[in-house]
C-alpha cells in the first residue's frame, strides 16, 4: 500500500451556504515521492492539505496514512500522528514570535516529552543542518524570511517525520530564497528519503518537484510526471 492512500474523499463546509470543496478525491502517494499539488485559489488544494495533515476532517471516503485509517480520531490521537508522522511548513512560517529559533525548533519534542537537554541537542543539530547555528538564540523578528522558513523546516524535521507537508512554502519569499528553500526540500527528499508534498500555485515551484498534481474545482485533474523538471520553463519566476 502506498504511504498516502485517498479514496473518494468528499468534504463540504457548512458555513451558512454549504460549500462542496472536495468532490471525490482519489490519490495515492508513494513513500519517498516529491510531489506538488497545484491549483488556483478556491480549488480545494489547501483543504486537501489540511486533510492530509490531519488538521481537518473529511466527510466521506477513506484516508490511509502508512496503512492506518485516519478517520474519527480523538484529538489526542490526531495530535500524536501529527507530532510523529508529519512535519508542517507554512507559508507564513508560523514560528512562535516570543521564542528563539532554538526554542521554536525544540517545541515539537517538548510535546513528545523529550528531556530538555536532549531536545536542545537535537534542535542545535537540525539548526546546524539548516546552516543557522549562529541564529539559534535569535527571535523570529530578527531573521530574514528565508531564515525563518529554514527554522520552520528544522522544526518540521526534528520529529523525524515520514512526510513533510508544505503549504505555499515560498509564498512569502523572494525568488532567490524561494529557489534555496526548494533546493533544501529537494535535498531532504533525495538524501533522507522523506516524502514531501508541496502545495503551491506557482508553476516554477511545482516544477522543482517530481510529480505535479493539478486540482481544479475539488477534483483531481491531470497528474504530470515531471522527473526531468521541464514544466513551466524550469525556473522560478516572480
Amino acid at each position, binding site marked *: 500500500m502506498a504511504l498516502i492512500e485517498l479514496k473518494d474523499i468528499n468534504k463540504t463546509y457548512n458555513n451558512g451556504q454549504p460549500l462542496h470543496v472536495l468532490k471525490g478525491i482519489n490519490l495515492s502517494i508513494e513513500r519517498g515521492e516529491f510531489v506538488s499539488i497545484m491549483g488556483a485559489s478556491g480549488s480545494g488544494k489547501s483543504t486537501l492539505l489540511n486533510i492530509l495533515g490531519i488538521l481537518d476532517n473529511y466527510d466521506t471516503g477513506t484516508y490511509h496514512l502508512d496503512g492506518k485509517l485516519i478517520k474519527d480520531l480523538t*484529538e489526542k490521537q490526531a*495530535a*500524536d500522528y*501529527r507530532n510523529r508522522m508529519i512535519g508542517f511548513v*507554512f507559508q507564513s512560517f*508560523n514560528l*512562535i514570535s*516570543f521564542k528563539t529559533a532554538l526554542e521554536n525548533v525544540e*517545541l515539537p519534542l517538548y510535546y513528545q516529552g523529550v528531556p530538555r537537554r536532549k531536545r536542545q541537542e537535537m534542535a542545535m543539530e537540525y539548526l546546524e543542518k539548516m546552516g543557522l547555528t549562529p541564529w539559534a538564540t535569535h527571535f523570529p523578528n530578527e531573521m530574514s524570511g528565508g531564515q525563518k522558513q529554514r527554522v520552520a523546516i528544522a522544526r518540521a524535521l526534528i520529529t523525524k517525520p515520514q512526510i513533510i507537508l508544505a*503549504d505555499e512554502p515560498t509564498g512569502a519569499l523572494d525568488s532567490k530564497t524561494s529557489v534555496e528553500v526548494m533546493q533544501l526540500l529537494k535535498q531532504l527528499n533525495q538524501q533522507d528519503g522523506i516524502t514531501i508534498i508541496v502545495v503551491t500555485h506557482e508553476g516554477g515551484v511545482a516544477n522543482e518537484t517530481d510529480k505535479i498534481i493539478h486540482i481544479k474545482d475539488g477534483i483531481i485533474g491531470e497528474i504530470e510526471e515531471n522527473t526531468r523538471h521541464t514544466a513551466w520553463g524550469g525556473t522560478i519566476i516572480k
Partner: protein
Amino acid sequence: MKKWFDTDTFREILDSILRNRSRSLLTGFGVFWGVFMLMLLTGGGQGLKQILMNEFDGFAQNTCIVFADQTSKPYKGFKKGRSWNMNYADLDRLRNLVPELETITPVVSLWGKSVSRNDNTSSSAVVKGARADYANIETPRMMYGRYLNDSDNAQERKVCVLGKKVYDELFPEGGDPCGQRIRIDGSYYSVIGVDWKESGGININGRASDAVTIPINQARKVYNLGDRVYMLCFTAKEGITMNDIIPRVREVIARAHYVDPTDEQAMFLLNTQLIFGIVDNLFKGINFLIWLIGLGTLLAGVIGVSNIMMVSVKERTTEIGIRRAIGATPRQILGQIISESTVLTLVAGMMGIVFSVLILYGVELAMTQDGILKAPFQVPFATAVLAASLLAVLGVVAGLMPATRAMQIKPVDAMRDE
C-alpha cells in the same frame, strides 16, 4: 509520560505571563487587592474587637451586680416607693439556695475621700471596702505587694491596696510603697500593694486606678455601715448561663425583704454577660460584612483574571493553533491555560497576603506600648493558609472558561488568521 510539574511547563507558563507584563500586573492587581482587603479587614476587625474587649479587661465575663433601690410595685401590704437594703444574711441565702453561683461578694464604695501620705502629698480617691474574693470579679494587676486576703478582713486590719493613679500622686518618687502608711479621714492604713490595673470603659464604682481598697469589715467599722450591703457582686459557675439563674437570685433576695421579685427597679441588676453578648454579636456582624466585602472584591478580581485570560486566548489563537499543529494535545493546552491563570492568581494573592501581613505588623508595632501589645491585629496563620488554598481553587476556576475556549482552537485556525 510527561510529569505535571516540571521546569519546562513552568517556563512555558512564566514566559506567557511575563510576555505581557503590564497586563498581567493589572490583572493580578484585582486579585491582590481582594486578598489584601480581606486579610487587612479580618486582622483589623479582630484587633478592634480586642481593643473593645480590653475595655472590659479584668472583669469576669459572667459577672452580675445588684443594687437595692426604692420599690416601684406594692407588695404584701407594703406601698410602692419603700426604701430597703440588702444585708449580709443575703450572702448566705444565695450561697445556700443558688448553688450555681461561684463567688458572692459584697463591696462598698465611699466617694471623694481625701487620701494623704504627709502634708505635701494628697490625692482624692474612692475608698472601696472589699473582701479578698472581690479579686474574682475585678482582677487586680499587682505591681507591688499583694491584694487583700481573708485574714485582712477577718482581723479587720488597717491595710490598703492603692490604685495606680493614687500611688503616682502619693509616691511621686516611685519605688515599692509596701509597709508605708497613708491617712484616710484621720485613720492610718499601711500599704500592702499597688494595683496597676488601668480600667477601661467598664467600672464598678469608679476607676480602679482612683481607688484605695481596704478590707470591707474595716470600712464597716470605721464608717459605721452596719449590716447593710450596698452592692453585691456575683459570678456564675463555669458553664452556667447567668440569665438562667437571675430569676432565682431575685426570688431569694426579694422574698427575704418583702420585695416583689418582678420589681426590676427595686432590685437593679447589671449583667455583664449581656453586654459581652452585644459586643460579640456586633463583631459577628462586622466579621460577616468583612468577609462579604473581601470575598466580593476577591471574586471581582478573579473574574477579571478569567476575562483577561479569555482575551489572551483569543489573541493567541495563532500561537495555540501552531502548538496544536506540531503535536500539542488539547489536554496540554488546557493544562497550560489553567496553570497560567492559577499561577497569576496565586502569585498576586500571595503578594496580597504578604503585604497585608506587613501592614498589620506595622499596626501592631504602633499599638505596642512599653513592649506590651494592646491588641493582636495579625491574621492567624490558619486564615492565611485558608486564603492561599482558596486562591489556588479560584485560580483554577478562573482558568476553566478560557481554557475550554483555547481547547476548541483547531490547528487550522493557525493558518486562517493571517
